[in-house]
């Protein structure tokens, strides 16, 4: 698929510029200049992260795979609707069409942050520090608020110490891991975007 598509594009460019009225063949020069930015990119299939129509997308990524050049790193060149999809047939809405800016946003937080009680600023923290501190807080919360047996003597094994509120732009697999782990921790306050 990948190769066919690219060959088709290149063939198309060359074909339309065949013999010009100048009387000599511009093909070699033009095709060098006009080579599309995406022609050396890998096509990666993705799905739009916004609503639940589930529009298929093609992400064109340079600097990976067979076409990787020396001194390049993986970089996103373009995202467009996948014409093969029976759902969207290549179309995207304004949001989907602008996902490049979401993917490449420079406003993303780049490292873990911690805000201490009463503090008025964030401080940078390492992943190890953050995760160790958090695991300790989770254990304390669970140990203090764990109900093994209720007043009627029923085994209930529930943890009322912390709750998980999840979103809906994580995958099935991540969502399943959340459920598996949170229920193992005895969490009863487990929710996601669906009710909202």
């Amino acid at each position: 698929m990948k190769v066919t598509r690219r060959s088709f594009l290149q063939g198309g460019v060359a074909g339309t510029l065949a013999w010009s009225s100048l009387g000599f063949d511009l093909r070699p020069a033009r095709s060098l200049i006009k080579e599309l930015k995406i022609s050396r990119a890998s096509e990666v299939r993705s799905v739009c992260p916004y609503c639940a129509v589930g529009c298929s997308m093609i992400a064109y990524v340079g600097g990976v795979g067979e076409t990787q050049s020396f001194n390049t790193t993986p970089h996103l060149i373009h995202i467009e609707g996948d014409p093969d999809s029976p759902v969207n047939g290549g179309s995207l809405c304004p949001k989907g069409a602008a996902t490049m800016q979401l993917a490449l946003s420079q406003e993303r937080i780049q490292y873990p942050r911690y805000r201490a009680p009463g503090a008025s600023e964030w401080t940078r923290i390492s992943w190890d520090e953050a995760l160790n501190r958090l695991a300790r807080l989770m254990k304390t919360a669970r140990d203090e608020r764990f109900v093994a047996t209720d007043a009627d003597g029923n085994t209930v094994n529930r943890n009322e110490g912390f709750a998980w509120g999840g979103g809906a732009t994580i995958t099935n697999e991540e969502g399943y891991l959340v459920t598996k782990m949170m229920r193992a921790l005895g969490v009863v306050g487990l929710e996601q975007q669906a009710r909202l």
Partner: protein
Amino acid sequence: MVSLAATFGRGAMTNHWVDFKNSDLFLVIGANPAENHPCGWKWAFHARDHRGARIIHVDPRFTRTSATADKWVAIRAGTDVAFFGGMIRHILENQLYHDEYVKLHTNASFVVSEGFSFQDGLFSGYDEAAREYDTSTWEYERMAAPAPGEGEDAAPSEGFAVRDLSLQHPRSVFQLLKQHYARYTPEVVEEVTGIPADEFVAIADEFGSTGVPEKVGNIVYAVGLTHHTQGSQMIRAAAIVQLLLGNMGRPGGGMNAERGHANIQGNTDNAQSWEILPGYLQIPRPGMETLDQYETPASLTQMDAGSINFFGSNYRKFMISLLKAWYGESAQAANEFHYSYIPKPDKNWSWMTFYAEALAGRLHGLFNSGMSSVNIGPDSNRVVQALSRLKWLVVMDPFPTASSEFWHGEGVDPASVDTEVFFLPTTHWIEKAGAFVNSGRWTQWKHAALPAEGDVKDDAYILSQLLLRLQALYQKEGGAFPDPILDLHWPYSNPNNPPLEEVSREINGRDLTTGAQLATFNDAKDDGTTAIGNWIYTGSWTEEGNMMDRRGTDDPTGLGFFHNWAWSWPANRRVLYNRASADADGRPWDATRPGIVWNGQTWKGDVPDFTPDSPPSEGKGAFIMTGEGVARIFAPGSLMMDGPIPEHYEPVESPVENVLSPTRRVPTTILYEGVAASFAEDDSEFPYVATTYRVTEHEHFVTQYVPYLVEAMPDFFIELPRELANEKGISDLDQVRVSSKRGHVQGVALVTKRMRPLRLGNKVVYQVGIPVHWHPTGGHGKGNTAQMVNLLTPYVGDGTTVTPEFKAFLVNVERA
């Protein structure tokens, strides 16, 4: 989704996007798909252009969906049960229903027990002090055991529901329905909804015209129906209309819930929801001490000879297979497969309960993973107070949110907030593989395209690291019941960051004796020899590989099933309940649009939602996920907490009394501590009905970080009808202040004809529209973008699901 499960057996959009091309008539209500689901909605235009389909839009606002519809009427926000109730009455009174379908595929013929009654807006069994129903009278009359010597050769029928296929029994569901909705006359509908009686009748007539085999109508809705104190009953009422008209299970028909986030369906299926486990197994309640006591819900006991009762009869297999996936080798028959490890909540633990627990000082910590409590509310000021009472808050997100920054938000003194806050930056959708499930249940695999920049981590990494650290702490120090944590089966090749492909294979499930991936949930066992993470996804990753990554574009029937594109749960079925697309003899109601057809040996067409070789002569019911074998017009027992038949109540904040009964508000809504005083009791201070919505340029809150989209739709605005603006001396682009009893926002006035004054009896009511997207941490907007609509919304939810009432509340509007 609870209401769809209560009616049909599964909580999901019944058809799918491409299938819209098979519809003759669309009723779009509580949704604006032309703006919010544009690439799916184009299939409605396909139906319009290729088969002459028509589109009716019912909405408080005239939107781009209305602009592309054949007819639009304005409805008062929060009155959809009255609208559908009127429609049910109209369909019954004028015999517009599909009689053969109703008898064959619904519980219209079931007889309800003698103790059931309805009076003054209340069903039998109401306990006013507890604000809940004893639902024991909401049941069918059951058959007794045959007397000795009688009917010994007959099939067992004891406990089955009594039926009257003539539909004449005064306590049959059909007659109760007639009786219940007799009050919902066009004049009453007008007085409640604001839709003029003649326009209402025209719509009821037109949609009612699909109650014939050769026509199919499609009801399309979104959170405009769910975000109400009676949201699940609005959806139930719409579902009843579709059942009466015979529009369920058929290509082009259905109850099509448009989900608003990329994987909201998948994350519901995988049970990030307090009351369920993966695959819609219920969370056990206190007292269900053993697997034997982990009862199959009452709704899943066989109640009719024709019922296949697939879910009910396999419930135990699915539960034990889940426990094997979670607890591996340590889960054995002798220890009940560690059933005791599953927590057993004693109360509702949905969103608003989180904050109530925090405010009461009981909840230590909260995770916000890819969502933001403060943005989404309701009553964001209350949520901020709740977060301030937490010991710790974790935000896992690529971008800052109003929750991650709540401790230095407007009006908050950071020194007074003792909450420890962690911001754990996560990777984006484009940086990782995995499955997204679209609204129509198509489960589509995406591939990782890019490595992430910066020191950000996958969600799976964060979860694993916390788990491994907790295991080490419990191992070393002991603590409260460490066993479920220490025994958790985490068999991944990289336990520090499980590859999602491996997790996906676990969700599909495998045979533990052969090690092979299972191809079908029919192979699930209850002896511990199968491990299945989520039975409804069995078949998604088989020995043949990842079915969700398939890209076949063949469509041999021309009906848009596309069975070789990705994979659709369950079992790659594209239209749910498709047995109902055929009559008693297995012939399609409409030969040009067959769902499945009996060919003498087997059912052909879509993947049958039915036993594939069960001939029509066996008379098995089309709805295999219900104990009745048919769809439920009347939802018995505790499927719905606020009534077995939908009844209209006013929103918690409403400008009028309830015309239909003296019971003004849904009688079973949870009233959280201290919230009653935060509701406007009448319209004296806050006279206008407000409703909230999205615009096409934004998706919830995250697109404030996308400059192109901010440029396209830059600023927070308030949409006002011209008549109200004139009355208030407000001009277009003036700054206006909108206040509710809970908070206020300020924005640019958009004076419009798209919202109209509604006449309810002698009263004129104005509605105001407010978009949801803006928030103080949101990137690029102009000066006035720090306004969150959820500062206004009421802290109260649906009578069954506790979904907040975002879509109808009272406000005042003034020039700022």
